[in-house]
């Protein structure tokens, strides 16, 4: 079973709960934790897992054969990501960081002066500890397209999938393409939130997204005693999504977090029970 841990807002406890849930589920099952917060992956830090690189994530980019280039400017005109600049009577200047690898320049070059090459945009790591296997994707810094790294991680995980009872996808914050890519892979999404107006605001965005993607969702209310629980309860009712666990705010959790230790709590056992 593939489950996403998501939530919209940052810092609500996604990774804390994903790692704790992995620890809990491992007691009776074979669990793979997949860190697809590729912008800032942290699950290996919380679980203190030494990761080994298993794959480079590559992306197609263009390469120019200047002998064939007639400086016509077509490539820079068709490029929608502004990765190709051209001054009249000069060869095109390519900015690889901005390139999304769409091939529009390659396919539209009238003299076939552009061919395919590759750039590295990220890495996939694997590590193991306490019976938990971890796959962790990491975007190369200054590369913009997190979604491609998430796609590559999904492909990598699909080859291992049969070995596991549970695959937990820990997503990044927000609702954009890299989160969508991860959610699309899952049968269930756990939205971790907190009872603050910001938590409510971002949770509603995630619930709307889940509806569009047709992925069933459940809510975990973290730090349920710090604000106004009613806010989340009303939203859950409005969207007909169940709150499956409430986790108290305890200074002990915070301290464990700042020391990179997974938390253990009755509420985590409850989540494990409710997702079966």
């Amino acid at each position, binding site marked *: 079973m593939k489950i996403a841990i998501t939530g919209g807002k940052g810092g609500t406890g996604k990774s804390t709960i994903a790692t704790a849930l992995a620890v809990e589920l491992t007691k009776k099952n074979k669990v793979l934790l997949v860190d697809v917060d590729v912008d800032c992956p942290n699950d290996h830090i919380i679980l203190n897992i030494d990761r080994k690189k298993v794959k480079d994530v590559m992306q197609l980019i263009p390469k120019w054969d200047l002998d064939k280039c007639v400086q016509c400017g077509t490539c820079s005109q068709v490029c929608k990501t502004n990765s190709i600049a051209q001054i009249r009577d000069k060869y095109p200047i390519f900015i690889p960081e901005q390139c999304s690898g769409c*091939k529009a320049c390659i396919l539209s070059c009238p003299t076939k002066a552009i061919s395919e090459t590759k750039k590295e945009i990220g890495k996939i790591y694997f590590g193991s500890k306490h019976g938990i296997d971890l796959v962790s994707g990491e975007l190369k810094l200054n590369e913009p397209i997190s979604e491609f790294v998430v796609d590559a991680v999904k492909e990598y995980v699909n080859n291992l999938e049969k070995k596991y009872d549970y695959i937990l996808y820990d997503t*990044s914050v*927000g609702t*954009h393409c890299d989160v969508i890519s991860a959610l699309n892979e899952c049968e269930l999404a756990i939205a971790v939130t907190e009872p603050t107006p*910001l938590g409510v605001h*971002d949770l509603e965005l995630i619930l709307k997204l889940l509806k569009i993607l047709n992925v069933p969702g459940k809510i975990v209310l973290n730090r349920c005693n710090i604000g106004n629980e009613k806010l989340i309860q009303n939203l859950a009712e409005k969207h007909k999504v169940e709150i499956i666990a409430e986790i108290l705010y305890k200074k002990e959790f915070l301290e464990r977090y700042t020391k990179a230790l997974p938390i253990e709590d009755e509420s985590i056992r409850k989540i494990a029970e409710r997702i079966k």
Partner: protein
Amino acid sequence: MKTIVVLSGKGGVGKSSIIASLALILKENSKIVVADCDVDGPNLALVLGIKKFNETKGIEAIEKAVLVEKKCNSCKKCLDNCVFSAISWNNEKNKPLFDNMRCEGCGTCEIVCPENAIFLKKVENAKVRIAEKPFPIFSGQLKVGESGSGKVVFNIKQMAGKKAKEIGADYLLVDSAAGVGCPVIASVSGMDFAVIITEPSPSAFNDFKRATTIVKHFNIPFGVIVNKWDLNKDFTKKMEKYFQENDIQVLEKIPYDKKFVDALVNLIPIVEYDKKYRKVFEEIIIQINKEVKNESDKISQK
């Protein structure tokens, strides 16, 4: 005008809370414009307690491929050349099927189509809400399920920048999304100074380092604010050693205080909720101004 971006790498470290109070204090003695570029989850207006927006505008920052079915000869060239897996094949109709959520609007399908059966159409993928009080604020919101957040950020920064010029603002403040991907790169690009917020946890510190790489890539001077610094004093010490070794200016250390949560729950910025925090934020502004001035002196010396 000074342009300042606030980012953090890790989410939930207090970015919006801090920028809201920073803006309120700045506003007392100078003209400011603020842009909330966390377009996935724009929260700044909420934290500031803004309930009424003067204006809402749609943003068409992306294009999507559209098929003219009559012209399509079912050659599948579009399917074969889409690197974003945005095209699948509808066997029943023997025509391509476009997945709008995955379409990046790159135009490759339009280029390869021999029958001119595909064209690109501008799509509204975001909205920007504009309020005038307590200062001009532009709050971007990506439509749920839409792509192109980087381009939306670029648009919002442009609008806010224009407004700042019009009113002769002293500061333009940009609130960036978490992470280090496309919307963050778009937020950071072209700014004069960056404030990176972190907290004493291995995760936040790791993400802080990732965020600095983005800022350094654009050659932007930056300083760090350590929020909730006393939650793990040993770790803060370790971080401070790193800051010192790497010549990173600590703008402020803010202690953990439940009042921040209470202020947030009540939608009142902390400097208004508890006036004793005014001093903390005044100090941050003094530090930022000092850093920005140092940098411009360095440049003029060169």
